[in-house]
């Protein structure tokens, strides 16, 4: 550490440049991961925060709510099956909420209507107002982001292309589906909206899109065997089945992977060039009696200090950026994510400096005496 710090102090400019490169890389990594996290939250937070373990879909629906249609009568049967502790049906429709009678652009908001049984384990906890109640079938609890769009507690709104009107009785948080705010209502109300067109329920009694199951030890194959025409998957798999979710996440992860790989190379080359320039010095120190271990530690501690400070600056910049980002930007940085990517960056930097360390072990101390050319 002694040598590492002394050298920083003496060649400020050189290390400053590398720090800048590293800071920019870290910044980009954090921003990208925050955006990825934000997007996937926006796409699936209702699913991610749901207190269910498994999901029963219609067979052949590719774990997608929009492709699946089942009868709720299956829920009763499912409840009898081994390891199933509770079941609850669910239906989802994408639609547009219209405030009042106006036709202005800003008064139309895309929403996801989610039909559930009031009081079931699928109903999220409200943060304002109160929860769903069977006495008020047109009452809805909605994601609090709708407040920013001008929706207040007690407001009534129309749905585009539907005669139904809904009244906001409560707000919930972190509930979005398919990038829009989730609006929870009773199943009966949802059916009126989803199957407004005659025959769109294909004649299925008590239609729902899926049945959510609780029970840690459920074996999906058991369920499928007992309920013909169904397909049971974990909640995680159901999340993957959300429209566009896999593709969206895949591209972000691809970008991050490329970014990290490229930065590993760039940093590795930088460290290597710096080490090469110091071959002579390292030779002298070896001639005086420094071991490979001593010199290796010099390099690693240098890279460690440099990486750590760059990552810290990168994190500060990222939070700074997040603070000035427009609110609609789907940016969500969790502490976990920041820690994970910090550690990844640190490990990458240390690994990429290992070639330099290897280089040191090969230096011949005789070089310092001007013998070997």
């Amino acid at each position, binding site marked *: 550490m002694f040598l590492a710090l*002394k*050298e920083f102090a*003496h060649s400020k400019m050189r290390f400053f440049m590398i720090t800048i490169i590293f800071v920019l890389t870290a910044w980009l990594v954090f921003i990208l991961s925050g955006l990825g996290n934000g997007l996937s939250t926006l796409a699936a937070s209702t699913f991610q925060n749901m207190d269910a373990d498994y999901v029963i879909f219609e067979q052949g629906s590719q774990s997608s709510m929009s492709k699946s249609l089942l009868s709720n009568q299956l829920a009763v049967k499912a409840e009898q099956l081994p390891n199933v502790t509770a079941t609850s049906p669910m239906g989802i429709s994408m639609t547009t909420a219209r405030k009042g009678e106006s036709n202005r652009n800003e008064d139309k908001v895309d929403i996801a209507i989610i039909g559930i049984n009031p009081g079931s384990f699928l109903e999220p906890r409200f943060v304002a107002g109160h929860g769903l109640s069977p006495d008020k079938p047109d009452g809805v609890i909605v994601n609090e982001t709708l407040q920013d769009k001008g929706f207040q507690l007690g407001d009534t709104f129309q749905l585009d292309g539907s005669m139904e009107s809904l009244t906001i009785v409560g707000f919930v948080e972190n509930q979005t589906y398919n990038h829009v705010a989730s609006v929870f209502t009773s199943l009966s109300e949802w059916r009126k909206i989803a199957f407004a067109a005659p025959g769109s329920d294909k004649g299925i009694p008590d239609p729902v899109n899926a049945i959510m199951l609780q029970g840690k030890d459920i074996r999906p194959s058991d369920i499928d065997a007992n309920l013909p025409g169904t397909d049971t998957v974990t909640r995680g798999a159901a999340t993957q089945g959300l429209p566009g979710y896999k593709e969206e996440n895949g591209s972000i992860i691809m970008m991050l992977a490329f970014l990290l790989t490229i930065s590993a190379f760039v940093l590795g080359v930088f460290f290597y060039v710096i080490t090469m320039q110091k071959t002579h010095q390292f030779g002298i*120190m070896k*001639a005086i009696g420094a*071991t490979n271990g001593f010199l290796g530690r010099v390099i690693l501690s240098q890279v460690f200090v440099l990486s750590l400070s760059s990552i810290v600056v990168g994190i500060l910049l990222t939070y700074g950026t997040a603070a000035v980002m427009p609110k609609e930007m789907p940016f969500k940085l969790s502490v976990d994510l920041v820690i994970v990517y910090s550690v990844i960056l640190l490990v990458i930097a240390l690994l990429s400096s290992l070639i330099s360390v290897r280089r040191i072990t090969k230096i011949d*101390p005789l070089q310092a005496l*001007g*013998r070997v050319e």
Partner: protein
Amino acid sequence: MSKGLQIQNVTKYYGEGMNRLTALDRVSIEVEPGEFAAVVGPSGSGKSTFLSIAGALLQASEGEVRVNGKSISKLSARELSAVRLRDIGFIMQSSNLIPYLNVMDQLIVVKKMGGKVSAADKTHAHRLLDDLGLGSKLKSFPEKLSGGEKQRVAIARALIHNPSVILADEPTASLDTQRAYEVVNLIAQEVKTRRKAAIMVTHDERMLEHCDKVYHLEDGKLSLVR
């Protein structure tokens, strides 16, 4: 077992087979504590090879080298590093200081190689530099020092671990006559007062007056001149 440096029948070959070159041919020399020996010889005669072997930087092909009573012929690379650090002070042709360390830190870093640095080590380094007339330059970086000052720092660096053997490979090559005298004089003084065994390789006949013995190396063969 006697201290100092003993080299017995050391032979060094470079290359293999047809290209084999005998750089040192059964060289023997013994330097006792407090003795300052000089090795002179034409270019290519094997002087640097000889000094590298004495300094645990290069292994001999045959023969034995004893530093401070301990044979180093069969040591691992790691153990050789330790011998170089503790028992040998090497003064190189050009001072070869580390550019980003000030005079004081040049010595401290050598201490660091051996482990923790205590306050006593610091006072020791300070006193050593004072003795060598560098008391006012403790915070200077090598780029701000004259050639003679740099070489004196290199001498201090070679002495900081209180080694039993001092080896100097043409320490005066980059200095003018005046400075060269000063530097050799300093080494001679250290050898006498601190009882070191020292060998200096040199081209410069004028530097020999400080030395107790003078050896001549030619075609890998060492002979006593004086």
